């Protein structure tokens, strides 16, 4: 049901091993990693158009950095970091003129629509969203990003986001634990 889980059980690098990072097929990478970067940009609160602009900027600037990125795996970490930085920059500049954009919330399917299976899934997603939104913004952002990072690249990305084990700030496990508690509370209250 989930590609990430499959790739997690049989680790396959998102970026195929190459002699050097400069040998990678950028067009292939764009297809593999843009869905993840979209979430990174949107997690920063960007609107659709701003998110797209940020991704364009980041991919184009990757071209000029390929020579200096040592390992293919580091490309994922570089892309996540660059996207996040640029997204926050654009978001900060836009916040003065535009309200926060949560239009995507409306697209969580209505549980009453569609098949029963779809309805169950939609209900789960609504509960999950409700639980997620009780966490700190930083935890929400981290979990949203981490959920999309290919497992083999996870350690590098986590290191760049400052969320390795033992770090002071929110970490994946701490945020997930809070989410579990929030989900439990919701069920208890029903």
């Amino acid at each position, binding site marked *: 049901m989930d590609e990430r889980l499959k790739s997690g059980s049989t680790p396959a690098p998102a970026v195929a091993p190459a002699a050097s990072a400069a040998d990678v097929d950028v067009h292939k990478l764009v297809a593999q990693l843009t*869905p993840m970067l979209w979430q990174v940009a949107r997690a920063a609160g960007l609107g659709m158009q701003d998110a797209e602009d940020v991704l364009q900027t980041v991919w184009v600037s990757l071209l*000029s950095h390929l020579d200096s990125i040592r390992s293919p795996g580091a490309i994922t970490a570089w892309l996540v970091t660059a996207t996040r930085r640029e997204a926050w920059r654009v978001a900060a500049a836009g916040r003065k003129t535009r309200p926060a954009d949560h239009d995507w919330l409306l697209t969580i399917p209505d549980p009453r629509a569609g098949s029963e299976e779809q309805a169950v899934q939609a209900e789960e997603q609504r509960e999950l969203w409700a639980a997620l939104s009780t966490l700190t913004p930083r935890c929400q952002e981290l979990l949203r990003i981490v959920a999309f990072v290919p497992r083999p690249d996870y350690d590098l990305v986590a290191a760049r986001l400052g969320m390795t084990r033992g770090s002071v700030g929110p970490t994946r496990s701490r945020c997930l634990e809070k989410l579990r508690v929030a989900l439990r509370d919701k069920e208890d209250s029903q």
Partner: protein
Amino acid sequence: MTAAEQPDDEALLAMIKSMFEAADPMPVGLVDRIRFSVALADLEDELARLTAGQTDPADRSEPGGHAREMALARGATEESRTITFDSSSLTIMIRIDTNADGTARVDGWLAPPRSCQVEMTLTDGSLTVDADEEGRFAFQSVPRGTARLVVRRAERGSVDGSQEAVGARAVVTPALVLLLLRT
């Protein structure tokens, strides 16, 4: 989810992923649009365009052809020509003067300034000089013939996400023909 389940980390993350994939998928066509930008950027940085010089503004649409005409360093020693090339990451301005021995002297400026190697490829071989911190460089003596400037960024050791580093690839100007007509 059902009440008894306590999903483990991976299961929980898989659920988060599914939720956002359903709620906020990347737009259709985004991958193609990015690929297009990437391909275009590759071309743009490869070739700097002639954008200013002593030429008819109407002719700028054909940078290659007119670069040649522009680069004529005329015989009168006091005469010099200034030419500007633009690429997405860099502007290169050069001034061509004629030396007494019939060779050309080429002074140049890079904007934004960067200290890096500037190479002039010639019909047979090439000359390399370093631009200083203000982006200035000079080729004291260039033989007549076809010349092309290649500006390379100095090696950057660090990997970082800063946007200012755009343009690490070489920027290449169209070919110039240095005709040194001595009087």
